[in-house]
């Protein structure tokens, strides 16, 4: 059992091969090759508009690659609706804007996936929702509507919803944008403990350097000029590695172009 798990950890849970992403004829990124291993925290970084959110859309199967392929658990993303849905059940996604359902309260937002996909009764759902909300620091606010929340609170509520089903893979698009340093620290801790305790694989888009160094096992750097990934690896090593592309080192050291 243990050995089997070890072996699983070597297996990439997600793999992109020669992935090209485009909106119509506008190519956003091309020739991306990378792997996300089971149980790792993968950070996707890069300048604004370089295609990070677009990459997430591809990884969760919402957009089809213009060229190349994406593999999940060793298989290409299914095109058939039913199987795609089954695959997506194993994902939790936090969208850049939170994407809370505005006609539902916070608690109902987090409860919806539980009601859809588990046979828990009302009381248990309520307990679980309370716990998830308290994990993101929103306990007691379950009865508010999204329009009554601040931007950072919406973000955190989106996070709670993404985690509702304890999914195997979590995709977070800029989870710490709009958060104060303290909340953002707590978020890093949360991400790390999710990985540790639930063996979740986590793909995070973020710009926060502190966060990147705190959580990332591996980082993928997308370049908007070259339109492809220019570096991949442990961000601490990339920062100090003289062979790494200078744009990446500058990004990680927060140096301005001179």
């Amino acid at each position, binding site marked *: 059992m243990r050995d089997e798990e070890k072996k699983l950890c070597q297996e990439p849970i997600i793999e992109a091969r020669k992935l090209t992403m485009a909106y119509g004829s506008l190519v956003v990124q091309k020739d991306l090759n990378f792997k996300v291993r089971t149980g790792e925290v993968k950070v996707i970084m890069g300048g604004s508009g370089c295609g990070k959110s677009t990459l997430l859309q591809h990884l969760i199967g919402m957009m089809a690659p213009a060229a190349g392929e994406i593999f999940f658990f060793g298989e290409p993303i299914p095109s058939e609706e039913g199987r795609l849905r089954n695959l997506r059940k194993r994902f939790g996604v936090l969208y850049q804007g939170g994407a809370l359902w505005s006609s539902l309260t916070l608690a109902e937002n987090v409860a919806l996936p539980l009601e859809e996909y588990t046979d*828990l009764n009302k009381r248990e759902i309520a*307990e679980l929702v309370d716990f*998830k909300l308290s994990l993101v620091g929103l306990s*007691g606010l379950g009865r508010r509507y*999204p329009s009554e929340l601040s931007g950072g609170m919406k973000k955190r509520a989106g996070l709670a919803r993404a985690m509702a089903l304890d999914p195997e893979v979590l995709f977070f698009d800029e989870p710490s944008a709009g958060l104060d340093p303290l909340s953002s620290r707590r978020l890093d801790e949360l991400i790390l403990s999710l990985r540790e*305790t*639930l063996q979740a694989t986590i793909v995070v888009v973020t710009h926060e350097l502190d966060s990147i160094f705190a959580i990332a096992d591996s980082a993928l750097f997308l370049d908007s000029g070259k339109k492809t990934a220019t570096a991949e690896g442990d961000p601490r090593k990339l920062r100090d590695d003289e062979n790494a592309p200078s744009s990446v080192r500058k990004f990680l050291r927060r140096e301005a172009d001179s």
Partner: protein
Amino acid sequence: MSDQGRQFGVEVREEEGEVVWSFSGEWVLRVASNQRRDVYRKRLVHSLREGRKIRLEMKRMKDWDTSFLGFLEALRKTGVNEHGCTFVDESVPDGMRKLMNLAKAVPEVPSEKSEKPDSFLTQVGLGTVGVFQGIRCYHEFIGKLLLDFGRLVLGRASWRTKDFWLALQQAGPQALPIVTLLAFLTGLIIAFIGAIQLQKLAADIFVADLVGLSMTRELAAVMTGVIMAGRTGAAYAAQIGSMRVNEEIDALQSLGISPIQFLVLPKVIALVLMMPLLTAFANVVSIFGGLLVAMGVTDVTVAQYHWQIVGAVSGIDVLVGLFKSMIFGVIIALSGCYRGLRCGKDAASVGRATTSAVVTAITWIVVFDALFAVVFHILGI
């Protein structure tokens, strides 16, 4: 991998004055069934007594997920808040303790909303206040609109010609196909019903009077109004409403730009200009539709029909119709924009704004049409 043989459980025992909760098996969503959990919950709640110390033991636990933590946290809260129990979690696995501490890191906000519904009196009171506030808001809106219109006439408004052309395009040419189709069919239907009745009296030729008068004076304007309320009025409400949801309206206001000048005026003016044109077109098309029926069902010729129409329909009738259509244009644009501006900040209220824009517009169109009928009758027009 069947879930059948998998177990989960909890044991309660007393040890050196402490209560020990000893969890075992797999406490995960897939395995732990509702009924069993309920039984366990009752057992655990039962062991919560005043000021007791409760030790959590998880040595025999094989697997867990956050559903277990939700279960446990709820019990812990009851225990601490209602019975003053203390919990000892020394033997809790590290990862689980971390998550539990994270959950406790931010204190709970005392819930500010009462679950109790308002009493009947409160509801009536709030409703009444709401109605008066609504009326006030509407007056404010009309007032601002008139002021901004004045500024526009004086050339002191921030007016974007491009937006205006776009609004004209949407309210005019793009609405033409649907207006044409429906006007043509209405003309056809009225002529058909009329022709069958009039034939009995051998008064076939009066089909022309029937179609001509009813369309030019009443139906063309009302029909175009209803179509435009459903088409353009709804679009105005939805567009402005979603701009409110996105805080675009706030952004305009914070720049000192009046959303009424920027968004509402071009739309109102465009619709007021386009409605008479659409109505005039509807007149022509519906009369043509009537002609087809007249020729097909009765023996009326084109020339007869033409002269009959010219004799029956006066310029005044046409003008009355066109005038009404302009007023309807104002009504449609105002209800659309007003509802859009008053929209809440969530998606559902955009839907409500759209619905109520259409309903308001159609209601007022019919009410005003009735008013006009009376007024014109008194004036003898």
